[in-house]
């Protein structure tokens, strides 16, 4: 029985983390049509910033976390203004090809960030001092309190996002923009402001997800690629452009990995999720709830 609770709790924590990251990725694709391949690098940057704040500036965990989120936020906006926006606006490339160029450019940008981090801080793994320390015992399972903290924060943020999109005017404009960009401009909304807003929100999501990841599991500069691939896979599984789909898929993948690690073997942790992805691609390429 303990095993059941262990799997339930551990799987929930890691799935929540996947969910937060994937939500950001799905958001950016859904609204601005950009598959941001520097996603993982942005998360790693947030973690390393939080770690560096603790190690070099000797800030407490709260300040460190705040710095990490801020760095994620700033880098996300930088990504938009330096890499994505120029390519979206340029006249030198044909419209159909812009998607590919943005893809390549974000890929390069992600690698640049990864290399810079490795250069400044080496490629050793880094962890962030958790805000919540200690362990709690739930249903006979001794769990780090941090895991519960992680899950709670993830869901808090996702709930806030939902409120923002569905209940505020600005949020509804964003939703409309994702469905029909031209239509929105006809209504007098500045499309570019919407894009900036979305990248800003994305930056917060990535920063928070990154810092939580750093507190829970830790990252190294090598994690950038796998993190992007994982978010990409989850979002495709859930259906490109569908945020609810991404949430569900995140839990499917998270639990699949956890169950495999507990019941089959930790050596094969990532394989079932990979196979599922292949199966979905073959059988239902648009994912669970995809609409594009």
């Amino acid at each position, binding site marked *: 029985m303990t095993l059941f609770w262990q799997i339930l709790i551990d799987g929930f924590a890691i799935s929540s983390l996947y969910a937060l990251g994937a939500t950001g990725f799905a958001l950016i694709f859904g609204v601005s049509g950009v598959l941001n391949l520097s996603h993982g690098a942005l998360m790693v940057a947030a973690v390393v910033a939080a770690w560096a704040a603790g190690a070099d500036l000797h800030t407490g965990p709260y300040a460190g976390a705040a710095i990490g989120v801020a760095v994620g936020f700033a880098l996300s906006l930088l990504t938009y203004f330096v890499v994505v926006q120029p390519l979206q606006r340029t006249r030198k490339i044909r419209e159909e090809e812009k998607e590919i160029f943005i893809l390549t450019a974000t890929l390069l940008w992600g*690698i640049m960030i990864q*290399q*810079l981090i490795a250069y400044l801080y080496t490629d050793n793994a880094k962890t962030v001092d958790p805000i919540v320390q200690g362990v709690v015992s739930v249903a006979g399972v001794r769990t780090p309190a941090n895991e519960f903290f992680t899950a709670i924060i993830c869901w808090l943020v996702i709930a806030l996002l939902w409120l923002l999109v569905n209940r505020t005017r600005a949020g509804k404009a964003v939703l409309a923009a994702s469905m029909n960009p031209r239509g929105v401009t006809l209504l007098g909304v500045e499309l570019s402001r919407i894009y900036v807003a979305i990248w800003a929100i994305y930056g917060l999501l990535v920063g928070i997800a990154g810092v939580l990841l750093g507190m829970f599991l830790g990252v190294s500069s090598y994690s950038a690629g796998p993190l992007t691939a994982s978010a990409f896979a989850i979002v495709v599984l859930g259906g490109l452009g569908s945020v609810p789909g991404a949430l569900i898929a995140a839990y499917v993948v998270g639990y699949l990995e956890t169950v495999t690690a507990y019941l089959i073997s930790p050596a094969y942790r990532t394989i079932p999720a990979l196979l599922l992805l292949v199966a979905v691609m073959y059988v239902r390429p648009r994912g669970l709830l995809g609409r594009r």
Partner: protein
Amino acid sequence: MHSRTTTILLVAFGVVVLSAFLPLWLNAYILGLLTMAYYSGVFAMAWDLLFGFAGEVNFGPTFLIGTGAYTAGILDSLYQPPIWLCVAAGTAAAVVGGVVLALPALRVRGPYFGLTTLVAVLMLQNFIVVDAHLTGGENGLTVPDVISINDTTNYEIALWFMAVSGAILFALARSPVGLILQASGQDAVQAGALGFNVTKHKLTAFIISAFFSGLAGALLVFYVGSASASSIVDITVGVQIIIAAVIGGRRTILGAVLGAVFLVAMSEALRPLGDLSNFVVFTLALGVVLFFPNGLFGLLTRAREDA
């Protein structure tokens, strides 16, 4: 139009012939660098065929390269048949791999295609690690035979292999098949409406890309004497190939070689910067993508376009 292609071909041929004489002046180290660059050039050209023409962003060119390289290497380390047999086997395996990959991949478009190719690379990496007794795992695979230990011989082999591959790929790109590919890449619906079997043509492009990738990969193993996941299959290697093709100039085939040589020259020139050199190279590459989307080849032939 015709005279422009002829001019380009003549110049390209001229450069190749001149390059064949470089061993007279250059030292073994530079020759070694260029040898690697030439093989990378073939990888990049094969990628350009798929991307630039068929319009499919292949994130995992290293899946095909790795399949070719490891098949050839494992065969040699187990049974030691003659090298040409291993290379042929590697190429065949890559082609089979290409078909196996193409079947699911071509049913999907755009980002899904990219993801499928990415998954293929991840699965190959998993296989390499899990079957370490066969592949050497993270220690890599060392083969008992190499083609030659003479730098000049290896250089010439790489150079002429690249030249011949380039010629074939270039000719293909300009042929009716290539034009249909271009059409399918840019507007599959219209190409289909015109009666062309888009899928069949893209599959052909896949197979050709796989052929050259696998062949070059196998030859590479017998040049270096070893293969490993981190030097042949890893996503970062794939990224470098993509960058070489893009900054060289997409849809030009020959530009890919320029890109590959440029990347190698830049990495060398920036060596004194140590670890930062990679960062600078990627920054430069990003700059090219942002400001010179037509790549180096586009830059060099710009005088033509102004005419």
